[in-house]
């Protein structure tokens, strides 16, 4: 095996290890890289390659490491980790063709492991590239050394293109059985994002992340005005200064049936949080695409949580109604009055506004005036503020969680039940406007207070008073307005500061296009199941489709495609036969029919001589024909089209050859 070929194997292994950073604990791909590098270096500068026993020892150590990490081996993630280390170790003993084939098989399985937890557009592109590379390697090792006229990649891509009709047909008709041989992988590359509590700066820190939290699809196709979109995540009932969290939950509410609510489907990005974000007052929340046993927890604030964090491919849908009065709020709202924490000045302030029992409207206007008159500032970098007093009377700078926590505290101090809600606000429409992209930076906190007259919880967003643009424009565009440099620097860290605003708007557009393509593809991958197949075939006019029937169709497709491919290649094969050779064969066949068979290995010169001797009647003609052929094929190798057709015609006219022996 040449050093060049060997290095291509190492490169392929490295290419297959790299995407596992972030999928499995990073020591695993790191060790993989170390093994391959070790092997590579040993080829370059004579470091000894570990022998069989050391390799076996390393393999055992790796298995032990994986066990220590996952506490089990029969798990897809542990299996992927183990597989990765084994591929890397296998490079120590690549000696011949067999070992290379073994490496390609392991790489294919590793690729499958990568795809299991990650159905996305980049993963699809990676898969295609990897398949091309793996197959090219297989092809390379079956091409004799020194005979490569061109890179095998071109040939493999051609092979892939030729095979694409079979692939597409199979994908469409192959029945989607549900086997459930093992439980699916839980994503671990989830982004840290939402948490069901509020501390000063906890929401503002998410501004730095333009990672997508979820995408929402509205059944009507029309997205509600962005300022109306409050994605409720968790309702926080326990107040301690500016820190709010969830404790000692009161009774669950009941909701009336909502017949005219709009259906929204949400596809969350993999995340560690289990919260299901819903608009206003949701009903009939339903998790789809996941394992059947995923639990669903309903909280007192009418928010929902799934039993485990959602993995890619799982999604949920709900109906929503923006009328809070449609909910039967059970339990005592007085549970939302407790205020903990040391805040003497705030207590004094609220006591000074109105005596006891103000109406919510009165309190709202007093609070709004307070913020206006004291020139509070809405800022993306609020700094560190530890108490309500410090925020209200010293720094006077804050982000939404500061204002929401302070306002809810005002409510509670003046005897009106109130709570803080955290979630997301707004979102960004997709390029085609058919869905909404909600990012981590859209994280938001606001207030809900109890209205005695309506017997319902009402939404109040103090941010609207301080920075209404934040709500109207959405976090992203608000930042573009207020701190464009920061945003650009964050999105395009290297070149951002040198780009013109126009170019930037194009780049943003490009990002949206990418997202549109991504969503289109991922949605297709997620939704193509047996139900989809049924509706697809129904559209084609086949109403009753069973899985067995589809399996039969699959077989038929296989046989047909094989036949078509066979016929196609056969057709081309005929065309590519050297026309000169074909013509000579015709001549030979004609003579053979007259009883003059060409001997094996007999060249045209000798055969021609024999033919001339055998058929004296045609001697002159035969001499010329053979002469022309020999000249064209062996001497100058060229015959003009016209001469070629002439020669062919002469051969065809040889029909009249008569065998003197037979006629005699």
């Amino acid at each position, binding site marked *: 095996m040449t050093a060049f070929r060997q290095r291509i194997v190492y490169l392929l292994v490295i290419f297959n290890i790299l995407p596992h950073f972030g999928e499995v604990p990073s020591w695993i791909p790191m060790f993989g890289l170390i093994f391959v590098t070790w092997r590579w270096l040993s080829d370059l500068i004579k470091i000894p390659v570990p022998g069989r026993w050391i390799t076996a020892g390393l393999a055992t150590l790796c298995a032990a490491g994986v066990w220590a990490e996952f506490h089990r081996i029969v798990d897809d993630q542990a299996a992927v980790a183990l597989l990765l280390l084994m591929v890397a170790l296998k490079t120590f003993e690549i000696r011949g063709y067999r070992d290379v*084939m073994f490496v390609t*098989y392991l790489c*294919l*399985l590793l*690729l*499958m492991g990568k*795809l*299991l937890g990650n*159905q996305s557009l980049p*993963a*699809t592109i990676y*898969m295609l590239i990897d*398949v091309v590379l793996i*197959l090219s390697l*297989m*092809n390379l*090792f*079956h*091409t*004799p*050394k*020194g*005979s490569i006229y061109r890179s095998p990649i071109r040939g493999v891509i051609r*092979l*892939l293109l*030729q*095979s694409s009709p*079979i*692939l597409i047909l*199979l*994908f469409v008709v192959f029945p*989607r*059985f*549900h*086997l*459930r*041989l*093992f439980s*699916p*992988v839980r994503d671990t590359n989830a982004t840290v994002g939402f948490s069901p509590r509020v501390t000063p700066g906890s929401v503002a820190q998410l501004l730095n992340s333009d990672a997508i939290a979820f995408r929402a699809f509205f059944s009507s196709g029309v997205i509600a005005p962005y300022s109306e979109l409050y994605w409720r995540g968790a309702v926080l009932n326990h107040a301690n200064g500016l820190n709010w969290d969830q404790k000692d939950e009161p009774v669950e509410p009941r909701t009336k049936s909502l017949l005219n609510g709009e259906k929204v489907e949400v596809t969350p990005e993999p995340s560690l949080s289990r919260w299901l974000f819903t608009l206003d007052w949701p009903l009939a929340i339903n998790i789809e*695409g996941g394992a059947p046993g995923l639990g669903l927890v309903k909280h007192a604030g009418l928010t929902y949580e799934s039993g485990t964090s959602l993995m890619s*491919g799982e999604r949920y849908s709900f109906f929503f109604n923006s009328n809070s009065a449609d909910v039967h709020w059970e339990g005592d709202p007085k549970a939302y009055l407790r205020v903990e924490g040391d805040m003497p000045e705030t207590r004094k302030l609220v006591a000074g506004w109105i005596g006891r029992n103000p109406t919510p409207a009165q309190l709202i206007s007093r609070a709004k005036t307070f913020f206006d008159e004291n020139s509070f500032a809405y800022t993306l970098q609020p700094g560190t503020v530890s108490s309500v007093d410090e925020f209200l009377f010293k720094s006077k700078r804050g982000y939404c969680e500061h204002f929401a926590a302070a306002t809810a505290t005002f409510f509670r101090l003046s005897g009106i039940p109130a709570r803080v809600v955290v979630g997301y606000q707004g979102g960004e429409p997709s390029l085609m406007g058919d869905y909404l992209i909600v990012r981590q930076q859209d994280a938001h906190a606001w207030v809900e207070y109890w209205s005695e007259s309506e017997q319902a919880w009402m939404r109040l967003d103090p941010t609207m008073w301080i920075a209404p643009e934040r709500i109207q424009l959405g976090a992203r565009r608000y930042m573009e307005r207020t701190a464009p440099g920061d945003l650009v620097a964050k999105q395009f860290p290297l070149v951002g500061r040198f780009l013109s605003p126009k170019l930037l708007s194009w780049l943003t557009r490009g990002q949206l296009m990418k997202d549109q393509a991504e969503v289109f593809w991922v949605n297709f*991958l997620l939704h193509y199941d047996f139900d989809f197949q049924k509706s697809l075939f129904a559209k084609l006019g086949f109403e009753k489709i069973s899985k067995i029937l589809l399996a039969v169709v699959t077989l038929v497709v296989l046989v047909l*495609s094989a036949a078509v*491919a*066979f016929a196609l*290649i056969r057709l081309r*094969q005929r065309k*590519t036969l*050297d026309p000169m*050779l074909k013509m000579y*064969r015709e001549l*030979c*066949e004609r003579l*053979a029919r007259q009883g003059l*068979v*060409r*001997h*094996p*290995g007999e060249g045209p010169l000798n055969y021609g001589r024999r033919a001339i001797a055998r058929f004296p009647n045609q001697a002159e003609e035969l001499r010329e024909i053979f002469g022309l052929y020999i000249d064209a094929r062996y001497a100058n190798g060229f015959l003009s089209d016209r001469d070629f057709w002439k020669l062919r015609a002469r051969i065809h006219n040889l029909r009249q050859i008569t065998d003197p022996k037979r006629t005699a």
Partner: protein
Amino acid sequence: MRPPWMRTKRIFIIPTGHGLIFIGILLVMILTAASAGNNLVYILGFTLFAIYMLAMLHTHYNLKAIAWELGGLEDAFAGEPVRLTLKITNESGRDRFAYKVRTTDRKLSGKSSHLPAVGPSGRETLEVWVKADQRGEFQLPRLTVSTVYPMGLFYAWSYLEFEGKYCVYPVRMGEQSLQRSKAGEGDGRHCDTRLNEQNEDFQEHRRYQTGESYHRVDWKAYARSGDLLTKSYQDSVPEFYSLKWRDVSHLAVEARLSQLSLWIDQLHRRGVSFDLELPGTALKRGRGPQHAEACLRELARFSGEAA
């Protein structure tokens, strides 16, 4: 009627061991995809499956694209391989790779021959070696041509059956010294002379005659004058030898044939004329490759019955 060229008529194809492993991996993928409901893994599996199907066709056509012709067939002494030359024509418009040719009967096959590549519409020759242990005249054995290109997932093979005979001469063995006979003298004057040039005295140059041994050509003279001259030696060497069956009668049949085979070979190399007398046949005095071949073929075909 067999066409003069051999185009592989029937092509057989089976998955290789690697092809079976590949199918195993594919099944694992489909089962995993069905279990996880993961369409991307389905796509991966189907892609590999489609590639698998196409690899079968391409392996098939890799073999089919080639026309095989028997270019030449040479006799050999027993114990040495018989060389046959195949003329190979790529009838397609693209590069074709990686063929292996051997005799179908593995007992007969020497080392298998590899043809790395043939260019579009290109021609190549390939030597195939057939093991020859026993003397005799043989029909050219069936050949197996095979390829696993492009992916190694399938093994396609076909048989080539050429009309052709070759002789395996008796192994050259026995005494180096030769009983010689003067022309016309049947008395068999014995003179043990080693067949080497030291015993001969240079006499004169003669013009080279076609068929004479190159060993006798005076290459130095050729370099000087450009004329092909043979060195003629003094009469210490007889003008010709008579090889007779009865002269080696003290040996067993096969040993006799071996002895004669050795002598014929030596005489031929020396460019000395000789005749051969075997029970039932006699070859007249002559020299040159054709004469030697005729004699050796007689030895190869010799059947003990006639003795």
